[in-house]
């Protein structure tokens, strides 16, 4: 149990990346339209976020500095300010989707309209941010989020033809889709795996937990358990959709459709487990994005931050998170579809990610900060390959989004 709790930070971080409200639906959309032919992108994303989070966790543990402090110091105020604006846009848009996602998940459980749940959800998120200790917060949401393993169970219960499912894994554009749409979803999945807020949260979480150079093994374990698990569940959701929804010709556009394959596989009991998982995952992702808003803004502006301080000692950090939640409720009050909101975040992610990744890669090589823990050659080789992939994805994201009308 202690080992499991030690990786709660990694699991919660990965939930925010792979299994947040927008991604839960995107994974099902991808499965129902492209089968398993985009699963390789999730694999590439898992390796990428492992590399990125590993470096940021290492920098946080050894130098005691979280990611946005490094970004501001290395990029200077102007370029870091551009990064901050883009990162905040992604993070707050995702927070909007998460608060809406909690409400949608509670509607699934209660049949009470999701619009009524929005203020309740936002208030609950705020209370946790204000009162609950970081460790308790990550342990509870991380463990309950594991209920989403139900999707992997559902794949087994559906008893697929494994050979046929494996054959779908080859990257190819299905006949009824065009290449532009395929690549748009490829970039959306890759961007969802590697979001800036995951790294802000993970590295700041390491500082919250008081990591030092002695905790490098904990950091590595968090990375190596959390993100592959998140990726596996993400692929499981796509597999469920590919097995049940694709043959039936069902187009996914709502969270409730996620439960259809699960109900067919495991009945009411498994659906109940999945709904617990969805509530926990969206709640966890809401905490992660709200905290990331506070972390990145405070670290850029040099404010005191962290849940390890009492709110009075980090007043502006808490105020930033309250404002982000107020924005989320206000946006949702316009009756916008919470899931549709995340479609546009990929644009801001494209701007923010290279500017977030590069300073971490540079500092991970700086012996002044890292002592003898600087990146080795193999790590640098992989990290540089991913820098190129990130830049290519960033450049391609916006034209593809416009050309395909966001995958329509």
């Amino acid at each position: 149990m202690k080992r499991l709790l030690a990786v709660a930070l990694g699991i919660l971080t990965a939930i925010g990346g792979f299994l947040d409200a927008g991604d839960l639906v995107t994974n099902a959309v991808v499965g129902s339209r492209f089968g398993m032919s985009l699963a390789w992108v999730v694999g590439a994303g898992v390796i990428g976020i492992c590399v990125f989070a590993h470096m940021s966790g290492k920098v946080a543990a050894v130098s005691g500095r979280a990611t946005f402090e490094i970004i501001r110091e290395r990029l200077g105020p102007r370029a870091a300010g551009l990064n901050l604006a883009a990162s905040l846009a992604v993070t707050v848009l995702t927070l909007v989707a998460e608060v809406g996602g909690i409400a949608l998940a509670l509607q699934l459980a209660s049949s009470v309209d999701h619009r009524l749940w929005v203020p309740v959800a936002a208030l609950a998120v705020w209370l946790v941010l204000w009162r609950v200790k970081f460790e308790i917060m990550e342990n509870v949401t991380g463990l309950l989020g594991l209920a989403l393993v139900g999707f992997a169970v559902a794949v087994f219960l559906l008893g697929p033809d494994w050979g046929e499912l494996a054959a779908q894994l080859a990257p190819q554009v299905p006949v009824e889709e065009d290449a532009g749409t395929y690549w748009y979803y490829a970039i959306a999945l890759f961007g969802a795996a590697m979001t800036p807020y995951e790294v802000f949260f993970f590295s700041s979480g390491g500082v919250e937990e008081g990591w030092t150079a002695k905790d490098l093994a904990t950091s590595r374990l968090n990375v190596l358990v959390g993100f592959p698990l998140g990726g596996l569940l993400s692929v499981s959701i796509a597999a469920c959709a590919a097995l049940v929804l694709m043959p039936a010709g069902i187009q996914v556009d709502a969270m409730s459709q996620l439960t259809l394959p699960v109900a067919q596989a495991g009945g009411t009991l498994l659906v109940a487990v999945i709904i617990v998982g969805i509530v926990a995952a969206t709640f966890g992702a809401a905490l992660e994005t709200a905290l990331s808003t506070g972390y990145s803004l405070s670290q850029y502006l040099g404010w005191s931050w962290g849940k390890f301080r009492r709110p009075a000692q980090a007043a502006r950090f808490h105020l930033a998170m309250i404002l982000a939640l107020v924005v989320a409720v206000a946006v949702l009050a316009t009756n916008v579809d919470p899931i549709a909101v995340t479609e546009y975040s990929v644009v801001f992610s494209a701007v923010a990610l290279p500017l977030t990744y590069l300073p971490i890669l540079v500092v991970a090589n700086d012996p002044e900060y890292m002592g003898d823990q600087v990146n080795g050659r193999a790590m640098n080789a992989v990290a540089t390959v991913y820098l190129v992939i990130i830049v290519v994805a960033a450049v391609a994201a916006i034209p593809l989004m416009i050309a395909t009308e966001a995958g329509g």
Partner: protein
Amino acid sequence: MIASDLLDARVLEADGQAVGWVVDLRLVLDGTTDGILARPRLHGLVVSPRTRTSFLGFERSDVRSPWPIAPLLRRWHRGTFLVHWPDVARVPEPDDADHPGPAVVVLRPGYLRYDATLHR
């Protein structure tokens, strides 16, 4: 004056010859104690001849990795030097008639260019 008045400013020699841009400020903590830290003092300006983008900290050390980022940045910022603050003659106000437009820093005649690397 605040740091933003100097960062990104164009650097001119006394005769008006442009030599680069201020890419960073070098501060030393040797003043009287203020809270828990010594008060910082402006030691000098890091000037890069070709670009005003960040050198990402490579100017401080002789780190050569990760390839190819470090060599590319080093090439782009080649000739980067440090000028001591006393070698700065003046920083004209934004409404200065001799220097309209973006911020500039004017150096003294006979100023010295120092290596920007930090030596332990």
